[in-house]
């Protein structure tokens, strides 16, 4: 605010002299020279972009060893800084420590690609990803403070296991080879085990928000997996001769998810923990059953909606407001899709289109009403506000 306004108010008799002086003093002290900051920001951005493009344009002229050396030195320097000064950095700003750790993990990941570029080597993607998880996983688990590192860790793990699944069930399979699909199924389910591990750590670690995020991500992976299992049944995907989705493979996946659910039930004895564990157990059941309703529209959709109604119920009990609203929206959407699956000719006539439109409006209306009226209040800040 400009001082001219304050002087005008003083002249109009709205504020007295000392107040005007105090306001002006306050404004001067708390002034935020946005324009100046913007100029500095633009200057810094220009310098940064310029440096990046100088490096990029001369990338091939920089000898590979030098490039790798700089890359490695940056990583090493970050590691030393975090190992020696983590507490001080975190005191100044927890986000600075989290950002440094995130950058370190990404530097380690890109080092694999950089090595491949310099030495013209290649490998199936899961191998460098797995090695990266093994090398930087402990660092992330011991120092992660929030969702960026939790997401990097869980996302890296999920990406790695599906790359592994692709490599051993497709890419590397020669004619007449035995496909190790049970091992692949077991590996693809492993990231779920972050859930019980994080549930256990949540009550014991000062970094509870990191473990909470990690548990949520593993929980999400299980729920998305179970939903996918139903979607595959809806399109009749199990009927194809694809061993990656064989009955035994799905049972292995379901068993791991069930194990994770029991783990969460036992390790986090709060209402939210009990509900999260129950949902995981339900997801396991859905994964195991989805294969039996293959290509039966109503049953596949029913199983899907059962899963999400269960999630909505759990959210009601545990007080997860956002999850409840999401679950209601998902069930409503699935209902609409089901109606088209059952009566695909609705879209072929004008009358059918009107009925379809009315039905969509009705379902959406009911869903919005339920979502508004029954959504629980979020339980706040005891680390139990969501799964």
């Amino acid at each position: 605010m400009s001082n001219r306004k304050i002087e005008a108010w003083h002249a109009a008799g709205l504020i007295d002299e000392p107040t005007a002086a105090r306001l002006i003093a306050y404004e001067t002290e708390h002034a935020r020279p946005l324009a100046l900051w913007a100029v500095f920001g633009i200057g810094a951005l220009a310098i940064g972009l310029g440096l990046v493009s100088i490096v990029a344009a001369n990338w091939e002229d920089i000898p590979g060893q030098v490039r790798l050396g700089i890359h490695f030195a940056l990583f090493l320097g970050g590691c030393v800084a975090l190992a020696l000064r983590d507490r001080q950095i975190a005191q100044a700003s927890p986000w600075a420590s989290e950002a440094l750790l995130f950058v370190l993990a990404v530097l380690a990941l890109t080092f694999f690609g950089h090595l491949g570029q310099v030495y013209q080597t290649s490998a199936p993607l899961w191998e460098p990803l797995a090695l990266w998880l093994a090398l930087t996983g402990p660092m992330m688990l011991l120092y992660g403070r929030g969702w960026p590192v939790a997401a990097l860790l869980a996302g890296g793990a999920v990406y790695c296991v599906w790359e592994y699944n692709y490599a051993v069930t497709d890419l590397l399979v020669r004619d007449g080879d035995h496909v190790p699909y049970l091992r692949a199924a077991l590996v693809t389910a492993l990231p779920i085990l972050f859930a019980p591990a994080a549930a256990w750590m949540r009550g014991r670690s000062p970094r509870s928000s990191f473990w909470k995020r990690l548990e949520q991500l593993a929980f999400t992976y299980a729920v998305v997996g179970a939903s996918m299992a139903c979607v595959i049944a809806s399109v009749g995907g199990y009927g194809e001769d694809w061993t990656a989705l064989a009955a035994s493979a799905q049972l292995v996946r379901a068993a791991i998810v069930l194990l994770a659910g029991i783990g969460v039930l036992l390790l986090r004895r709060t209402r939210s923990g009990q509900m999260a564990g129950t949902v995981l157990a339900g997801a396991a059941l859905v994964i195991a059953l989805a294969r039996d309703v293959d290509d039966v529209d109503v049953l596949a959709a029913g199983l899907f909606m059962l899963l999400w109604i269960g999630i909505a119920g759990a959210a009601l009990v545990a007080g997860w407001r956002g999850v409840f609203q999401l679950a209601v929206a998902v069930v409503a959407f699935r209902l609409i899709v089901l109606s088209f699956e059952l009566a695909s000719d609705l879209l072929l006539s004008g009358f059918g289109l009107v009925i379809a439109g009315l039905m969509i409006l009705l379902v959406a209306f009911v869903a919005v009403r339920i979502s508004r009226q029954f959504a629980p209040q979020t339980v706040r800040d005891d680390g139990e506000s969501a799964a």
Partner: protein
Amino acid sequence: MNVAARIAVFALPVIGLGGLWALSDYESRHGTQWDVAIEGYDPRDLLRGHYVEFTYDWDVHGDAVELQDEFGFRQQVDRFCLTGSPPGPPVIDEINGDISACDFPVEADWSGVYGDDGLMRGRLYVGQDRAREIEQAMFDQDMRAIVRVRLGENRRLTPLDISFRPLTAQEQSERDAQLADVSETELPAE
């Protein structure tokens, strides 16, 4: 958190990445280097970087000749034995045979970008300027492209560089015959 664990979690990736670098460097200095003629090369510029894609023009003798046509090999090639002395040019006498007694055995890298096509096709990552040079050189009909590959102790081929040499007299006459053949071929009447 005790000091030992704190040192360990940071030492692990530093030692691991450093070790991986050392291993890559060690492997890149071992093995034999061979010059293999290539054809059908194609500079690419995708998001992941610049590279030149090419087809190996292996010098095949004996029974293996039957398997080769102008598009490469007619069946999956898993392994063969290079004969001659590095840098060649290498000669192949048999494909997918027993390579246990071979001095320079080559095996396909099934996990590579070309999968089971790995002994027929390859790619060399190059810089922007080098890619442009290769692109210009490939228009020259009187030059033959040669890729230098390293045959590692793991029996895999790693392309190192692409160079060009003038066609030999025999290659020139073969090419002229081929060109004459093409111009004599008439389009079938409709």
